[in-house]
Structure formats: C-alpha cells, structure tokens
C-alpha cells in the first residue's frame, strides 16, 4: 500500500511540476469517455468483453504549438461472467460455480502529445505515455469473491484528433485511440493489454 501511495504521489508531483518548469504556455484539461477492449493475455485469461465503463482524463501543459505534456489518469471497469463450469481446485477437489472476473484499473501516466499540423484547423496528434497501473482484481465463485490489489507498469501509444470549437481556439472536441501495454505477472496471468477509444473535450484553463 505504501508503494502504491509513493508511486501516485511521485507521478502527481512530476505532473504538476512540469508546467511550473516550463513557466509559460496554456494549461488544458482533457476529459474523455473511454471504451476499452482487452487484448492478448487479458482477453484470453480474464475478460474478453469490451468495457463501456471508463474515462480517461489529464492535465496538459503546452510547451509550444507542437508539444504538450502532463499527467494523464483514468479508470476502467472490466466485467465478465462465465457460465457454470466445474473447476479443479486440486487433484481431489472440484468446485462447480459461475465464475465472474471483475477488474478495475486506474492508470496514472506521464504523457506527451505531439501535434504535427499545429496550424491547421483540425489538429491530429500522436501521444506517448508511461506510468503506474493500479489494478484491483476480483474473482468470484458464485457470490464468494477474492480481491487482490497490485500496482504495475503501463505504457501507452495513441493517436487522436482535436477539433477546436472555433477557429484558432484551443478548446474543443477530442477523439482518439490508444494501445496500452500493461504487464500483469500475477497468479499465472500475463498482461492486461488493451486498446481504447476515447471521445471527450479539451478545455483550456489558462
């Protein structure tokens, strides 16, 4: 738990320190609805259903017209219920149960966005981020569950498009997609990799 708190505190300090170091430019708030689709080990071992319950946000400082960086954070709730099956708990012990996996993920990332066509009305961008992935993994046999909380690494690569509300405006609508690499070497699992589709707003704060 101490490790989790230290990781979050460190990321928050770095994220808020970046604008102060840069000294000028605009500060923007991103708020996006997020749809997430599990991939690879996540899809095969835990949850194959897409999750419509999530958001991705962030505070970004514009260093110049092309580059902004800051702290990105989010939340996603994954859920899947599997039909009743008999599982072997040991060589001699079997359990018949409806298995439910319920996983809540809270990424806290340092993230940079690059806008190659900063002077055009529509502003496409690519993004890169890395940081902590706080994972709450609950597994239920019937109504009886176990919960495990861990902090892992998470890296993100994304593309998106910002559509300003008005010409030369810095606030606007945002659509984007990202691939998230999230190793999860616990309890025989491999990863929580996923792709995400976001839509929301970008609001200039100053």
């Amino acid at each position, binding site marked *: 738990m101490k490790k989790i708190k230290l990781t979050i505190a460190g990321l928050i300090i770095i994220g808020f320190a970046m604008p102060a170091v840069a000294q000028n430019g605009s500060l923007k708030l991103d708020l996006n609805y997020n749809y997430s689709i599990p991939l690879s080990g996540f899809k095969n071992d835990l949850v194959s259903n897409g999750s419509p319950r999530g958001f991705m*946000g962030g505070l970004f400082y514009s260093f110049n017209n092309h580059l902004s960086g800051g702290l990105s954070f989010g939340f996603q709730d994954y*859920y899947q219920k599997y039909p009743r099956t008999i599982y072997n708990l040991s060589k*001699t012990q079997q359990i018949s149960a409806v298995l439910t996996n319920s996983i809540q993920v809270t990424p806290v990332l340092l993230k940079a966005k690059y806008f190659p066509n900063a002077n055009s009305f529509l502003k496409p961008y690519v993004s890169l981020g890395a940081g902590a992935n706080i994972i709450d993994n609950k597994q239920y046999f019937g109504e009886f569950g176990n919960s495990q909380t861990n902090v892992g690494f998470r890296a993100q690569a994304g593309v998106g498009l910002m559509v300003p509300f008005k010409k030369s405006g810095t606030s606007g609508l945002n659509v984007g997609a990202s691939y998230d690499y999230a190793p999860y070497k616990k309890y025989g699992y491999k990863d929580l990799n996923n792709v995400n589709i976001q839509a929301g707003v970008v609001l200039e704060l100053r």
Partner: protein
Amino acid sequence: MKRILMMLIGLTAFPIIFMSCTKDVVKNLTTDESRIYITDHDSTVNFGNFKTYSISDSVAIIQNGKSSHESSDVGLAYINAVKKYMDQAGYQMVSREDNPDLGIDVNHIINTSTGVISYGDYWDDYGGYWDPYYWGYPDYGYYIPYAYSVYQVKEGAVSIDILDLKNASEDHKINVIWTGLIRGEGVFNSSVADSQVKALFDQSSYLKN
C-alpha cells in the same frame, strides 16, 4: 477563478461518475448462479469397493461450534435426495444395525455471532457433532485423509459427509472419504434440495458402485 472551478469540477465529478458505474458482481447473479458446489474425496479409495450405506435420520445444525440435531422438512428433503442419488449410484441403503459399508451425515452450518466460521473449524469438532457412537464405534475418532481447504462460511451452508465404516475396525478410526459442500443464496430450502444434491453427485463421477 471560473476556469479553476471548472477544472476542479471536472477532476472530481468525472471520476466519481464513472467509478460509481462499476458493475456489481453479486447483484448481477441469479439465485442459482450465486451457489457453489465443492466436493473433495480420498483419492486412495475405490468407491466401487463399497456396497451398502446408511444415512443419519436427522440433520446436524452446527452453530458457533455447537450442534443440535433436527428433523425438519428441509433436512428430510436433503436426506431423501442423498438416498435417491446414492441409490442411482448403485449403493444399497441398509439400517445402521446392518453394518453398512458407508455412513452419511448431513449438516447445516449456519451463521455465527462473529459472522464468520471456517470449514476447517467445522472439522475440528466433528466428533462433537456426530458422536462416533452413532455409527457404532464409540471409541474411535474421525479422520480426514485429504487436506480440505478452509472456506469462510458467513451465511450458511449445507455439507454432506460420507464415512468409511467398512474399514473402521481395521483402521481404528472413521475415515471421511467424501465431502460435499453447498453454499449460496437459499440453499436450505426443501424445494431446491434435490437439485443441490444432484449437483454434488454430478461432479463426483467416481462415486459409484
């Protein structure tokens, strides 16, 4: 000021809205889906070597480490269901006085004052719930040859235990060779007793003569 307020609202309201949308696992289960059936057995035992069985005529109600025996409609429904599926598995029911190869106990474990008891605790005092005298072996103790996992029992469970009486004299103990545990919503109900016991037998294909 207005923008800072907007930021604060966004930073707090948005996460709260989405985090509150987390899908509740238990609320998304039907009564049937809430139930689990756990079986364990002694892998060194050949269940085909037993021919006859006898079953207790009442159910042990186990609460806070103490037990009483009750002959309720629900208990009777469970006892009858066990008889039905033992018969279907090829075993013949006899009275306790006819030296059955197997003895069967049915137990209802219910909530405790502390809210939690473990199945491990349940085993610790098994002789207190079912006096070995009941099965004709007053000086013997019970023994479980396999490692039974510990489960937290919060709101009630039904367990069924099969005892090896055929080899009790030779072993000087009564081995518990099969256990079945039913947990979940509404399991202690006579209308579901048959289906609950069937589930235990269905996942114990080795339990046949």
